[in-house]
């Protein structure tokens, strides 16, 4: 007898069919959706397999401890059998110091390390303006980094004392007046110069005093003769200071209180130390110069405009290598005989000019993206030129240009490897050539390239991530 069936409770929901969920669904949708995609997926998988299969043994057979390339090869043969290949990272281990510092004396390695750590302390107030939490975090990381690396590089006790006092002072300042940390950023270039090149402590102080003279003269005379003439007078006064008062004052101060650390020659700089010095100096000086050039190009004043356009077009029209050769060879012809103008300084100046010309065009793009109304609004508010630029125009123009500016910076940093063409010891070609000239390591090929490439990637990737963070932070529109 048939009895009607009535379900009284709801069945539990079944999972979707196997083809419609999880990895299978994802693969069906993304890898095997059409015949063309199937073919491409198979080819791609074969390619990846080929790469991995051909290089994996090389990575797995890595040798970290050896005295020479032939020893490396023997170790690999002993481990993996006849004919096996393996990476010989021992070469990097042995030449580690040269890759990082060039021929900077090992007893003084703590100085570039300290300068590098403090670089972040100096950058933090710019990168995280006024954010107490982030500033404290960065300073704390800097302190930890410095204490560990200084210990590893066997720095003298005085360096530790200096780090603890300095960083503790900065952290305290960050709690009370985070805005004032910018002063450290302003002092940092002189401190960094002194740490890296050494010599009397008075030389950076007296040189920085020139800027103080510039500012004082500017402030004192600007109410009397106007902004531009006052700036001119300040520059003249500072130039006089540097030309005539710098040297005698320096020797007088030095004889009164001789505080100095061992001075290091430029030709001992190399590796990532050199790349960082050129890159960071170029980046930090090219941005302000680039902004001025971009504004100059938009200016109504004929001379300013012509000079800016001429500079930008000339420098952009010439390859960087040409400028580097100019720095290394041609300048020497035009300077008086016997002058010894430091080669790193020459290269830094020309690299800065090069980057500044590109940045000027990038920023001009940002300026052009602003609606005309913004300029008119600034005028309507009665702001003078500099206030209008500083408060209204530039913040918006720079925000628009962030990705392109950071691209230029990354390009500049990578271009520092080109200095090997003028005989400087950059990490990629300079140190690698020397490493390969060492009879123990002659014949090594991939390892130095991979090592240097990895470090460059880390630095450039870091810059790129920061720029994305900055873009998100500054995003005010609702698109």
């Amino acid at each position, binding site marked *: 007898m048939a009895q009607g069936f009535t379900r009284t409770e709801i069945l539990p929901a079944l999972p979707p069919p196997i083809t419609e969920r999880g990895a299978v669904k994802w693969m069906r949708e993304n890898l095997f959706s059409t015949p063309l995609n199937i073919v491409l997926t198979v080819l791609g998988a074969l390619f990846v397999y080929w790469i991995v299969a051909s290089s994996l043994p090389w990575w797995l057979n890595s040798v970290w401890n050896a005295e020479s390339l*032939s020893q490396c090869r023997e170790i690999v043969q002993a481990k993996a059998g006849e004919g096996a290949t393996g990476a010989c990272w021992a070469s990097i281990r042995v030449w580690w110091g040269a890759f990082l510092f060039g021929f900077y004396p090992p007893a003084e390695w703590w100085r570039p390390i300290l300068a590098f750590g403090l670089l972040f302390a100096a950058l933090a107030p710019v990168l995280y303006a006024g954010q107490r939490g982030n500033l404290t975090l960065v300073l704390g990381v800097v302190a930890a980094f410095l204490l560990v690396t200084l210990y590893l590089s066997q720095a003298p006790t005085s360096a530790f004392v200096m780090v603890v006092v300095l960083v503790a002072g900065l952290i305290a300042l960050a709690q009370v007046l985070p805005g004032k940390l910018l002063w450290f950023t302003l002092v940092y270039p002189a401190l960094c110069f002194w740490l890296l090149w050494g010599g009397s402590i008075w030389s950076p102080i007296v040189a920085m005093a020139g800027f103080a003279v510039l500012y004082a003269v500017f402030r004192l005379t600007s109410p009397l003769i106007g902004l531009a003439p006052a700036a001119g007078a300040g520059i003249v006064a500072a130039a006089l200071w540097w030309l005539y008062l710098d040297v005698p004052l320096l020797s007088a101060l030095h004889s009164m209180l001789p505080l100095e650390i061992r001075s290091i020659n430029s030709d001992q700089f190399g590796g990532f130390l050199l790349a960082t010095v050129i890159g960071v100096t170029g980046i930090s000086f090219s941005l302000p110069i680039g902004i001025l050039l971009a504004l100059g190009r938009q200016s109504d004043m004929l001379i300013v405009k012509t000079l800016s356009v001429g500079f930008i077009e000339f420098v952009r029209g010439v390859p960087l290598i040409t400028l580097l050769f100019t720095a290394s060879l041609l300048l020497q012809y035009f300077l008086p005989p016997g002058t010894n103008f430091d080669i790193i300084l020459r290269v830094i100046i020309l690299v800065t000019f090069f980057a500044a010309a590109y940045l000027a065009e990038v920023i001009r793009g940002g300026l052009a993206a602003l609606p005309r109304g913004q300029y008119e609004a600034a005028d309507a508010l009665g702001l003078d030129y500099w206030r209008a630029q500083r408060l209204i125009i530039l913040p918006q123009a720079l925000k628009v240009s962030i990705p392109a500016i950071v691209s230029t910076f990354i390009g500049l940093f990578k271009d520092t490897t080109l200095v090997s063409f003028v*005989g400087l010891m950059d990490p990629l070609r300079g140190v690698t050539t020397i490493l390969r000239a060492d*009879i123990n390591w002659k014949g090594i*090929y991939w390892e130095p390239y991979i090592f240097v490439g990895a470090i460059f990637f880390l630095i450039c990737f870091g810059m790129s991530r920061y720029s994305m963070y900055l873009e998100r932070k500054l995003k005010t529109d609702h698109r």
Partner: protein
Amino acid sequence: MKKSVFFGALAATTLVAGLAGAATLDDVKARGELLCGSNTGLTGFGAPDASGNWAGFDVDLCRAVAAAVLGDANKVKFVPTTGETRFTALQSGEVDLLVRNSTWTSSRDSELALDFVAVNYYDGQGFMVKKDLGVSSAKELDGATVCIQTGTTTELNLADFFKQNNISYQPVTVSDDSEAQRQYLAGACDAYTTDASGLAASRATMPDAENHVILPEIISKEPLGPVVRHGDNNWGDVVRWTYYALLIAEEKGVTSANVEEVLASTTDEEVKRLLGASGDMGAKFGLDNDAFKRSIAAVGNYGEIFSRNIGEGTTINLARGLNALWTQGGLQYAPPFR
């Protein structure tokens, strides 16, 4: 009109550069340091070690000059120069002396206004092939692929050689020695050609050196030597005779180890003059009288320099060959020291 202004400016700058180099010896003494243009890194000839101390066959000649002029073989600043910058660095006064395995050619002597003062290494272009290719002479390389560094004189020599022998080849151009070695070992080319000394160094460091042979033909003359600026003859003399002093020292059996002993005991008048015990030969160059003795004491004689850096027993293992003394069938011959 414009052109003449340009050339005028060029002439003026050349004049300034000429003035800068007019008295290099005095400049070096005043500076207390010799600026020696060197290689960015060439195995056995000139390269720094991991702690930045330069060593090599060319480097030792710089040290000898520094010992003669300044009395201290360590008062040298080695300025790494690339193939592109080396001669301009010398002309512009960036370096006092260039010892960077540069080939003495007529155009470099005339057009570039440089002076090659001596030949410290007689080199020549050779070929390296894999043994299983079964080739015993470069003339059998018909149709072969050859790895060659671009922009060098070796490229031109190679073309000349194959043309003269009426055989064909296919060049595989590479940028530097390490890449050439890489390509050659990977089988991208049948033969690798460069200076014979470079071939020997490359072969010595290969994983399977016994499977590669250097063919007997040397297809070019590559006399390598120290270079100074044209027009400063006194400085050129100092460099030239420092080098000759090292040669004479080998000829007379004076070494860095026995130089004091020889000085005390020798009866050879030329050795006495060389070591400054008689006459005033050093003073005639504007140097101290024992200048050349200091050079020998600092770096040893030519034979010692050779065997220490590139000679038999080192990894590079070069035979003296053309670089033996003239008394032993080589080309190294110093004029008399009197």
